[in-house]
């Protein structure tokens, strides 16, 4: 278990190609929180953010706490603050949790966080790779579908639609419900390949997660990959624990997520 005490990789260099363009003319002024950070309304893409890269599923992975507001990793000693917006936790960091101080099962319980999460299932996009709950996906979804799913989300839902206690994780695995990744436990997607090379592989799904941040702003994100290098077609030989994702955040307090 001393692996878990290794100096963590949370401070590993994050390569981020940020492209922020305000679009302020199109967005009506909101009534949300006053933004005090340098990150502006915009779209941000991150590659290989190191979560628990030495995770073994014998225990919960070391969680990764991320601030969408500030676009950076937040250390665990700030858990009960509003400084982080999403946590990647659970086995192999496969769950996304929000920061909500009032929700007993949120990692931010007891703190000031106002967060929530919501999973978008787009029937048109799902039809291109998804079969049915509790079944293997039809095919590995094309990378372009992730961007399409992301772009199609233009507004956040009503606040009572957000989950606060629940995490969003693996799709229909061992009692779970709709999720953002399909875990091919038995290598069923590629029956002709050695099961050991294609079994126990996580395929991310082109489903957008809408986030209410700890401070109460709205954001959306899509996860491209949980493997180092974000391979289009992961196998078991790729290293897990490296999260590549894209998000957009709206800093004016409105629910408008049609952000370029």
């Amino acid at each position: 278990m001393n692996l878990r005490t290794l100096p963590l990789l949370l401070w590993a260099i994050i390569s981020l190609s940020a492209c922020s363009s305000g679009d302020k003319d199109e967005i009506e002024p909101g009534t949300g929180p006053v933004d005090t950070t340098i990150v502006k309304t915009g779209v941000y893409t991150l590659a290989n953010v190191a979560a628990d890269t030495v995770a073994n599923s014998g225990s919960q992975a070391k969680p990764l706490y991320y601030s969408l507001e500030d676009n950076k990793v937040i250390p665990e000693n700030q858990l009960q603050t509003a400084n982080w917006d999403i946590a990647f936790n659970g086995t192999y960091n496969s769950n996304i949790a929000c920061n909500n101080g009032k929700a007993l099962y949120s990692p931010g319980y007891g703190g000031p966080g106002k967060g929530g999460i919501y999973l978008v299932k787009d029937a048109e996009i799902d039809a291109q790779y998804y079969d049915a709950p509790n079944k293997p996906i039809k095919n590995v979804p094309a990378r372009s579908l992730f961007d399409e799913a992301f772009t199609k989300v233009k507004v956040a839902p009503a606040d009572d639609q957000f989950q606060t206690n629940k995490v969003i994780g693996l799709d229909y695995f061992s009692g779970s419900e709709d999720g953002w990744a399909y875990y091919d436990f038995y290598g069923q997607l590629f029956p002709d390949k050695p099961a050991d090379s294609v079994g126990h592989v996580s395929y991310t799904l082109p489903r957008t997660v809408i986030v209410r941040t700890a401070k109460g702003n709205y954001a959306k994100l899509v996860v491209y990959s949980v493997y180092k290098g974000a391979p289009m077609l992961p196998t078991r030989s790729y290293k897990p624990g490296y999260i590549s994702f894209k998000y957009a955040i709206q800093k004016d307090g409105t629910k408008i997520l049609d952000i370029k």
Partner: protein
Amino acid sequence: MHTRTALLATLLLFAACKKEDNNVKKDTYEDGVSTVIYDLAGDTEASVGEGADGKVMRPFKPFFFRFNGKQQSWDSSATNRQSNSWDIAFTDVYNALVYPNSGTDGRNPGYGGAGKGLIVMVDKPYASVTQAPTEAEMKTNNLGFVGWDGYPQPYNDGWYFYSLQTHLAIAIRNRTFVLLTAEGKFAKLELINVYKGNPPAVTDLHWPAPYFTFRYFVQEDGSRNLKTP
């Protein structure tokens, strides 16, 4: 490297519990009124990984169990699933995801049938669970299923910890489940082990599994009295 560390951790964990576990003998499960099931074979031909002799890496076939008469069934037809011929179903990885028979829960194998099943967790030893909660309380706290503790949601109480790395499932001691059977009778259930022979500690990845050891008591008079010696 990871495997070795995890195994070491597991060994250490067991070393710490060994004394207590040594005092647990099979015959202590027999209390005169409960039914004890030893080594009920699940889908022993399925495997979670390559390299297990005679096993295939594929999903586990579910089976169904009726408390009255200790009947095991492998009939997954809709007719059987939606009947009251079973009280608990053993599904998914290692057959270790256990459902009561509920006709109303969309995730339940019995969905669409007449099963009245509910399941709640009580963190007490089996013998000290002497009364079921009210049906209303059970509806409120219904877990729907019990499996891997803390999964998929942090509030999903389960009956074991499971490591995908070591592929070992360790039952949680002194945890009891109170159920409504398919027919709506109160019962209590202790899920004891998934490994053949109910060993106190398993370190061998290929220890024969799944073979279920569990015990239960159904209160046939319809009351919530679950007292056992």
